[in-house]
């Protein structure tokens, strides 16, 4: 069940804003609320990032709190970790998710472990905002979805918002969380519009959301794949197949109960994620469902993720690498036909 806080307002009068605006609003509101919150990253101030997500923030908060850094992913992540350890609440901007590899020692060996290694005495209230997603024709070093890398490390929380509403509510919670949170935004979704209330709200980390109710098949989908799953569900509805779309919203902590309950109810599950399928997030989600709902399943859990190839440049090739609505519909049909 989605929590009460997770249900967007039903009112048709609710305003609609873009995913990028939702992220910006979350940052601005948290920076107004808490002077310890600051932003650090490459081209975050005047440029407002290449995606313009942060436009206007430096004008309101000044260059002391929206800090343009050198191109030094490890350095800024380390510096933010240190600032967090002594009580600040930094938000690091890593321009492309591919570049978390450069900061991986600071993320996996420092930020993730400080609290545990210190026996609980030190805390790291750090947010690392970065992107995921292919299909921008950006080729292999600007197109990866590496959230499985960080989901693997104890001590990190990992958020994957799929709507403007979720992006705002989850980011506010991430900033208020006393742990390092890696926050992945799909760069293809920055222009996606959706209802976001004017009034204050947060979404707890670790609570899945049923994005569409259904009875024949559960699609567990993350980030960009939620939109793919919803489009596929719409197409399948025309064929009389009722799909329930469940969005975990965070891979860590993971709301196992909601996933398992949905799979038990529908008896079939397809897991969708834009990270590499091999050893990826789909493996974990499928295993959780298999362990929790095995005797309720009428067919093996299926999963779809990115192909195990560096993402190619050519549009024709790139589109082959990630799940599309057509391919998802095809696999869903097979699943429902299986008994």
């Amino acid at each position, binding site marked *: 069940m989605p929590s009460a806080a997770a249900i967007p307002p039903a009112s048709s009068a609710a305003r609609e804003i873009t995913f990028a605006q939702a992220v910006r609003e979350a940052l601005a509101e948290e920076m107004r609320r808490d002077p310890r919150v600051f932003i650090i990253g490459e081209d975050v101030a005047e440029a407002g990032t290449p995606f313009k997500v942060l436009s206007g923030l430096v004008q309101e908060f000044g260059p002391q709190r929206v800090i343009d850094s050198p191109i*030094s992913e490890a350095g800024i992540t380390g*510096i933010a970790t240190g*600032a967090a*350890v*002594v009580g600040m609440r930094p938000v690091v901007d890593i321009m492309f998710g591919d570049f978390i590899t450069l900061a991986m020692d600071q993320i996996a060996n420092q930020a993730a472990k400080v609290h545990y*290694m210190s*026996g609980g005495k030190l805390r790291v209230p750090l947010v690392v905002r970065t992107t995921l997603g292919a299909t921008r024709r950006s080729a292999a070093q600007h197109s990866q979805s590496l959230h499985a890398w960080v989901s693997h490390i104890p001590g990190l929380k990992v958020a994957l918002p799929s709507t403007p509403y979720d992006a705002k509510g989850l980011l506010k919670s991430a900033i208020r969380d*006393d742990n390092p949170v890696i926050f992945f935004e799909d760069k293809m979704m920055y222009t996606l519009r959706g209802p976001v209330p004017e009034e204050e709200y947060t979404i707890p980390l670790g609570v899945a959301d049923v994005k569409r109710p259904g009875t024949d098949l559960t699609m567990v989908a993350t980030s960009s794949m939620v939109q793919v799953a919803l489009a596929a569900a719409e197409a399948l509805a025309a064929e009389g197949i009722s799909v329930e779309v469940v969005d975990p919203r965070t891979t860590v902590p993971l709301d196992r109960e909601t996933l398992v309950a949905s799979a038990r109810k529908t008896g079939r599950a397809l897991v969708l994620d834009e990270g590499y399928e091999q050893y990826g997030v789909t493996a974990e989600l499928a295993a959780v469902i298999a362990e929790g709902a095995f005797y309720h399943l009428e067919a093996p859990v299926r999963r779809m993720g990115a192909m195990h190839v560096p993402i190619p440049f050519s549009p024709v090739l790139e589109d082959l690498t990630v799940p599309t609505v057509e391919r998802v519909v095809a696999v869903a049909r097979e699943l429902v036909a299986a008994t």
Partner: protein
Amino acid sequence: MPGFTEVGLWLQVYREMLAIRLFEERVHDLYRRGKMPGLAHLYIGQEAVAVGVCRALRPDDYITSTHRGHGHCLAKGAAPDRMFAELLGKAPGYCRGKGGSMHIADPDSGNLGANAIVAGSTGIATGAALAAKMRGSDQVAVCFFGEGALGQGILYEVMNMAALWRLPVIYVCENNLYTEYTHYTETTAGEPAARPAAFGIPVQEVDGQDVRAVYAAATAAVQRARAGEGPGFLLCHTYRYLGHHVGDVDRSYRSREEEERWRRERDPLQLLSSWLTAQGLAERSVFERMEEEVRRELEGALAFALDAPYPEAEEVARHVYA
């Protein structure tokens, strides 16, 4: 001629160096008797750097430390009993037995943690300095590391930002000549001092065996940083008497003669006590009495740790998340 208070300072400094020396000897002994799990990287020989630098700091200033960190922790104010307990994996240890020798953190004394990744804490120290500056406090952060960290890229990333933003951080490089098992000249091109200089960070080269020289240099760097004049870099020339870690016993990469020469001619405790006696500021017997006292204190601290319980099983899953 130093006055009475200055004599008191140097006797206290001597005592702190002695406590580190004797603490480390106890650790070595524990390891050789199979009483200590894991590894320990001993600091014997380098005591003047930790004590000389930490003496120049206030209790609310920050340090970060390295895998060879016992000396820094003690110099910044950690208690030997809880340190021994941590080294033995016991519940009352500084990290509840979950950090061990390489991860002792004690925020109460400003110690943001020892770090087992070479150069791994350089970002943390620089970030603590950024936070101090943003809050308008006059705290400074000291980042201890060995010359091996000069090979790691993150050091240069954070020194660049520290210099650009005039952060109150002091990089203290302890060149003990050996990057693990390899002489530093085989791992480090050019002059180490030229590297921070390239960022416009003032460098002071110091005889790391002379605690008075280290203290003077650190005091100057701390004053600059506290006054908002930006980062500093101390390049301390020192020597690690023992191996890279307690299991490195044959040390085939260097000669016993070299080790003996440093012990005989460049020992930081002897250098200070000789200066104090030569100046007529202290009798030899003062140091003998002090050694008895420190040994007795450390015996008590070790007994506490040996008697302490191990952590309960549920401790394993505690503090993964705050």
